């Protein structure tokens, strides 16, 4: 049995037509993984080995940073955070492969903490909209035990199709999740940030702030789902998506979903897609800042709000945003 690729008719892939993006690719070697998603199936089929990473804090206190680069077509990584340990993983998805699929299975035990940064890069060389061929797929399945923390920050520049999926299950009481991200897409690029968080236990918290910008011919997608079942009392969940269409002919699709079945919860969400603020732009220009520079300044300020202040890589991530704005 070969893999059936989802197309726009599949609800989860409504805005990202994988079948179309992969037409012409020979996927006959990919068997559908049992109980796994299409991304997981590809990652397993292409991966030569499974990487295992156990997180241990230095001196029992400091988070140790691990780098994982997705330079092969497939990568499967198991990340284990034992109780009370803390660590950090930086995953970089490079733009040189025509198809890359990555799967990270993350288990955070009681009181453990993991910060995950995902950097999805556009092709290193300038590639025109017609030439861009890369399909970059990444999926993380995360379980968080009681008192555990999972923080994630994704920065995506898009590809022919780039999809970063994150699925988190808050299995124990008092778990915390932060799922922030930024996407910025130019002509011919498509970036899709899709996530689900399921509050299986009570008194857990989710915070999500995703910001995106799209230029003419670029497409951004945000799908975020937070599920709060009946037993998950005391849940605190906030989800915000804000995006700017920088030019005519840019497209952004958003599907925020908050499903709440418990009654003692505090939840909020917001979704706003608009243009660059004309008042702000005029103010900056009236103070002498030329239009192009003023726009870059405002877009940068808009995007970096999603990068948490205490993230050690904040400056590097800001530099990436600035570099994107300059090209």
């Amino acid at each position, binding site marked *: 049995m070969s893999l059936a690729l989802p197309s726009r008719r599949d609800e989860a892939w409504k805005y990202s037509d994988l079948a179309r993006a992969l037409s012409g690719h020979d996927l006959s070697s990919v068997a559908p993984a049992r109980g796994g998603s299409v991304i997981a199936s590809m990652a397993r089929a292409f991966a030569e080995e499974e990487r295992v990473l156990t997180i241990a804090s230095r001196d029992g206190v400091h988070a140790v940073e691990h780098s994982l680069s997705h330079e092969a077509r497939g990568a499967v990584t198991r990340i284990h955070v034992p109780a009370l340990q803390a660590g950090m993983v930086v995953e970089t998805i490079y733009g040189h492969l025509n198809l890359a699929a990555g799967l990270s299975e993350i288990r955070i035990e009681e009181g453990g903490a993991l910060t995950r940064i995902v950097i999805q890069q556009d092709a290193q060389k300038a590639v025109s909209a017609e030439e861009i061929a890369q399909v970059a797929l990444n999926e993380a399945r995360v379980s968080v035990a009681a008192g555990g923390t999972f923080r994630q920050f994704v920065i995506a520049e898009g590809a022919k199709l780039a999809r970063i999926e994150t699925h988190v299950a808050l299995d124990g009481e008092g778990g915390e999740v932060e799922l922030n991200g930024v996407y910025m897409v130019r002509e011919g690029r498509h970036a899709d940030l899709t996530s689900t968080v399921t509050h299986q236990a009570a008194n857990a918290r989710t915070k999500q702030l995703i910001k995106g910008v799209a230029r003419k011919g670029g497409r951004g997608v945000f799908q975020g789902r937070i599920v709060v079942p009946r037993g998950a009392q005391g849940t605190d969940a906030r989800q915000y998506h804000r995006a700017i269409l920088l030019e005519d002919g840019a497209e952004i699709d958003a599907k925020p979903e908050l499903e709440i079945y418990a009654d003692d919860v505090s939840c909020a969400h917001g979704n706003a897609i608009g243009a660059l603020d004309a008042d702000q732009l*005029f103010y900056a220009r009236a103070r*002498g*800042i030329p239009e192009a520079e003023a726009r870059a300044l405002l877009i940068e300020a808009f995007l970096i709000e999603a990068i948490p202040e205490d993230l050690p890589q904040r400056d590097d991530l800001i530099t990436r945003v600035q570099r994107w704005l300059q090209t």
Partner: protein
Amino acid sequence: MLELKDFRVSVGGAEIIKGVNLIAPSGEVHAIMGPNGSGKSTLSYALAGREGYEASGVAKLDGQDLLALAPEERAHKGLFLSFQYPVELAGVPALTFLKAAFNAQRKGRGEKEMAAPEFLKLVRSKAEALKMPQEMLKRGLNAGFSGGEKKRMEALQLSLFQPKLAILDETDSGLDIDALKIVADAVNATRAPDRTMLVITHYQRLLDFIKPDRVHVLARGRIAASGGPELALELERSGYDRYLEAA
């Protein structure tokens, strides 16, 4: 010197400023007073070059035609508009913004940009004069600032940029009396022989603190009367009705 001749402004096809003639020489402070809807803010936005404000006629600053220039170019030529409602730029630290604007103006005039340490010293001394805590410079520009703090930030920029023409649009709105005195002191301190100031206000109150050389009454898009400082006092007593009826 600011020179307006048959200056007209339309917004969305409707003429708001209907032929204003005005000469405000360097070294002078001119007040433009008028009721709500008389076109005061339209006048200031149009002079600063805001999109959507179709201006015609003559508007010259020291002989230079303003109307052909983009907003940033007008700033480079020395035009400064103090906004009635300054915008909030949450993600841009005030200091970053001030430095970008200051050096963009210098660059636009073909001058050398100022290095960071020197600039920091300059801003700090100006902020001190305005009794602004240094901490305000590190925060996002105007982000979460009170009305008074925002106006102080505008006054800081006025004293930093040293413009040839300063247009102060309703600088007194949102200010309590203490904040008003601080901002007025800053404005008075920037009076100079090579600088024209246009103080736009609804109320006479501000003019107790910033003494104008000339007062013009704007009613229904035209200058209905001009006179000395006594005109402002007369308006305070008898209101704008007389001018609205005549206009």
